[in-house]
């Protein structure tokens, strides 16, 4: 085998296939690197001026040219975390229902419509969030949570409706289709014998689903969560309409906040002045870093739980 010449290996379709598909995969990495490179070189001014201070500074002053990323990082993380906290249980539950319990035709047609949700433009989610969710938060959710759990800093007032939690709720609605759609497909592709084996061993329907089928589909489900997380982190339009656009840190979920993607969307088109523009681009870079770290943490979580699982099996 090793003595075949390169040319003859090339004529072998497999080698070409390997090369060609490798080029495509490499393109993805290349594009990502290029993007990071662009962000890096176009944020040189604020990086030199502020250095690490950028991560902890809280002021955002285009007039005095003072820029800090902390309030935006905070808002991005909080709103995305809230979104996942709502969307993942709900979405996974719905996916399980659609894949395991619902009759095929119901499942397929519902899925069709759920997929359509992904096509609704962000602006429309923003409008719906603004006219429905924001008043709901202000007049229903806040009074309810504040009166019962108001001693917790998480639920303190005052509340105007536009808030981290409103953003989290809108984001949850936006990312649920991804979780349901992909998780359902993955669950459907788990081989039948896995379920049947579990049931044959005497497990209940739920046990076979939760303890056998779902773990089998774990990486696919995690993949859908990553998709959802990425969408939540980068969402601009819908968030800016419901989060209050206030670059200040606050402990309460009902306080107005800001996110990285929202401030870039709001200010980029009107920003003049190199430092200002580049500070916004540096925020884009920070978001990249956040995504990098969050993805890494999540992957670590998978590895740890998988290892634990295999240890138990042994």
């Amino acid at each position: 085998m090793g003595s075949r010449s390169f040319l003859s290996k090339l004529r072998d379709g497999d080698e070409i296939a390997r090369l060609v598909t490798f080029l495509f995969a490499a393109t993805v990495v290349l594009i990502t690197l290029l993007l990071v490179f662009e962000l890096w070189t176009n944020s040189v001014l604020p990086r030199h001026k502020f250095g690490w201070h950028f991560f902890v500074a809280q002021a955002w002053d285009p007039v005095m040219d003072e820029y800090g990323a902390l309030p935006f990082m905070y808002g991005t993380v909080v709103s995305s975390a809230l979104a996942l906290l709502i969307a993942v249980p709900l979405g996974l539950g719905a996916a399980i229902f659609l894949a395991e319990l619902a009759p095929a035709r119901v499942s397929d047609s519902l899925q069709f419509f759920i997929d359509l949700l992904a096509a609704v433009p962000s602006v429309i989610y923003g409008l719906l969030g603004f006219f429905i969710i924001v008043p709901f938060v202000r007049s229903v959710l806040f009074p309810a949570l504040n009166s019962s759990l108001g001693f917790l800093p998480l639920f303190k007032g005052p509340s105007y409706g536009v808030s981290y939690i409103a953003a989290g709720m809108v984001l949850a609605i936006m990312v649920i289709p991804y979780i349901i759609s992909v998780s359902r497909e993955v669950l459907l592709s788990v081989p039948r014998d896995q379920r049947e084996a579990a049931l044959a061993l005497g497990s209940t329907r739920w046990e076979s689903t939760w303890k056998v089928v779902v773990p089998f589909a774990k990486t696919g489900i995690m993949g859908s969560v990553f998709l959802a997380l990425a969408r939540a982190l980068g969402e601009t339009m819908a968030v800016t309409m419901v989060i209050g656009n206030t670059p200040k840190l606050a402990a309460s979920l009902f306080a107005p906040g800001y996110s990285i993607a929202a401030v870039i969307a709001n200010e980029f088109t009107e920003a003049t002045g190199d430092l200002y523009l580049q500070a916004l681009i540096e925020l884009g870079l920070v978001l990249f870093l956040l995504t990098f770290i969050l993805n890494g943490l999540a992957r670590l979580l998978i590895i740890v739980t998988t290892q634990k699982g295999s240890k138990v099996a042994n």
Partner: protein
Amino acid sequence: MSARLRWRKFLSNFMLTMTGVCAFVSVIVLFLILGYLLFNGGKSVSWAFFTKLPVPVGETGGGMANAIVGSAKLLFGASLFGVPVGFFGGIYLAEFSGSKTAAVVRYAADLLNGVPSIVIGIFAYSMVVLPFKHFSTFAGAFALGLMMIPITLRSTEEFLNGVPRMLREGAMALGASKWKTITTVIVPAAYRGILTAVLLALARVAGEAAPLLFTAFGNRFWSPGWNQPTAALPEMIFRYATSPYEDWQRQAWAAGLVLLALILIINILARTILSRGIAVPRS
């Protein structure tokens, strides 16, 4: 029946009911949104909407014909660019690569997916618009295509990996080369999941306005070819919905509805045309 068994049965019924509740809640929200869109948009959709160009504020009878065509072009171009890269890249990850390379590519794709759409727009602006000194449909398609890559890639890999080993080994045993196995056995087995993901990616970028602001730019008129600025539905929706004029706001809802219908049609067409008649067994 022992107490433990009764508990397990109860838990099973309870949890399964809960999943039903989850599905119910998700579907309710979905139908509320669709209903809202249908109600508000349906009122304003008219024949003029599909055939006329936009008119200035204060005048009635305008439409978004150029935006509809523009969106179709942009989606077409985006798919041409984004789907092959994601699809073949996914094949590489699932079939050819080692685990280290795979991890790197997957990470890169996840990062790309998390980039805010407006930053993708800025990137496309500096890559495609600035060097040529004008906005274009091509630049817009490039930006949207970039956004389609991560979903396509990850899902292709995921579903290819999910194909049972038996199928692969069976093909190999019959003497098929790796590539032939991939094209005739593995991809067809996984095509459903992949197609779902691609359509999901398409739906996602169809509704994005931010990456188009500095690439496709927008156009009041028809945009011939690929080299000029073009109008697009999400961009029009963004402008009209956030304007103070009631007529424009109504048109924005109509545009949202039309956009959804466009995606629906693409979904249906894609699923019927690309169905190879292979019944993928539902486990």
